[in-house]
């Protein structure tokens, strides 16, 4: 139920995001989702790529001098209506699981919205969400984008 994601450290200066995305683009890596957390000094860029491309993506980045690490997140499917996401977050909160960060992910063949979440406790959050009947997007579904 986990989705693989790559986190990359970037300096918060003009052109750094462009350089990084161009580097991956030129090597034929397609970014399925991207999110940027920025501070005044630096940023962390998180990207989702096809799971077959993760190793190659890491290699390209590291060879170019970036610090990049793979990690796992979950992706929930929530109905496109008010309170859709709030219900998911309430489930996690009631189980004392906090959300480190979250971003949305567009998948055209789904009617539902897809939200990527990095919970404080990955394993437990999957159980909590499954027993609440909330469906999650699998890596296989992501790859079939």
């Amino acid at each position, binding site marked *: 139920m986990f989705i693989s994601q790559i986190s990359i450290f*970037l300096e918060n200066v003009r052109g750094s995001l462009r350089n990084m995305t161009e580097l991956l683009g030129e090597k034929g890596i397609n970014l399925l989702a991207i999110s940027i957390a920025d*501070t005044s*000094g*630096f940023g962390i860029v998180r990207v989702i790529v096809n799971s077959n491309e993760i190793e190659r993506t890491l290699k390209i980045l590291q060879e170019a*001098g970036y*610090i990049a690490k793979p990690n796992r997140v979950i992706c929930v499917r929530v109905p496109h209506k008010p309170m859709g996401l709030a219900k998911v977050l309430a489930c996690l909160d009631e189980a004392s699981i906090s959300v480190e960060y979250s971003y949305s992910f567009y998948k055209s063949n789904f009617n539902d919205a897809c939200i990527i979440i*990095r919970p404080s406790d990955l394993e437990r959050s999957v159980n909590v969400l499954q027993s609440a009947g909330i469906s999650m997007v699998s890596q296989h579904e992501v790859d079939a984008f």
Partner: protein
Amino acid sequence: MSILNPAIECMSREEMTKLQSQRLQSAVKHEYDNVPFYRKRMDEAGVKPEHILGIEDLHLLPFTVKDDLREGFPLGLLAVPKEQIVRIQGSSGTLGNPILVGYTAGDIEIWTEMVARALTALGCRKDSIVQVAYGYGLFTGGLGLHQAASRLEAMVIPMSSGNTQRQLIMMRELGTTVLCCTPSYAAFLGETARDMGILSQLKLKSGCFGGEPWSEKMRQNLEGLLNIDARDIYGLSEIAGPGVSFECEEKNGLHINEDHVIAEIIDPESGEKLPYGASGELVMTTITKTGQPMIRYRTRDICTLDNQSCSCGRTTIRMGRLTGRTDDMLIIRGVNVFPGQIESVLAGVSEVAPHYLLVADREASVDKLEVRVELTEDMFSDTVGQIQSISNTIASQIKSVVGIQADVKIVPPRSLPRSEGKTKRVLDNRRV
């Protein structure tokens, strides 16, 4: 505690100034006439020996730096024919040529006298048993202390450094009373003696410790551990060797042997002479040395000079403990910052010590220090909060170690400038 040469060591300021002035005047003339290097430098600076009438004219003379000695390798700065040189000492540079120093018989005499004053100040006499555990060789520590202890007719044990167990056996069996070595080796000897259970069998009374900077805390440790009076001795081979200055029983600064060297403190940036009490670079001029004399030699050591009277009776000025080196010092809001301090903080946050750069800037006439730290693999985590908490930890540790607030900026790996050889650790943008 006694004074070896009270006529000199307790001389009035007026007499000392007169003595130094006379000696400086003739030394400069001798050097101008006999050392092409000094003649060239003085000509370039537009100074002639006749312009130097006393110590008040010292500032007219050009500085001499370590590189001048290196470029003159092996013995480019000799002021006498080579036949008059009776000894070579020196220091091994980690980069480039070693620095060699040639001594005439008279220079050895002077050096011996300086160290003998230091040993006398810590109670060394004819009946003392002196163990010299400084290295013997080109390094001036071993022979410097050996000569002086011999001059005082003490019993000398020339152990040189190392072989700790044997050092301790000799110390116990011969009843060593004065230990001469680096402070860190003294601590090691003490700890080993304690582990061997022979600490109480030692008869040590005092220690003559130099060759590296040490602190008051270290003094307390050594005095407690070895049950001795621990004294600092300072020197450098370019000037003579150990004994250029030494501590008396007051342990409040090191008395400089001013009849042989003139000490100044300068601003390492501007070269301007600073008043007593101000912290700056120590500059020394030899006034009695004939083999390889030094004119305004920049030691790169940072300290202060104190001309207030000392209760020991000596009237010579004293230098404070060394607080660092000019090579890589930054002064931020009046606080000296050394890369080594920042390095020790960074060593604690990452397994691989991160590359860093200290950047000084001035904003609205306030000095600011930015510490740029290259991110390492193990510092990187997926969340902003964790990286920020690492930089907060670094900032608060810098605050407690150095005493100033620094802005810590985490930068990507390999983004800081690299240079060949010595890595650049400091960038000062304030010189505008």
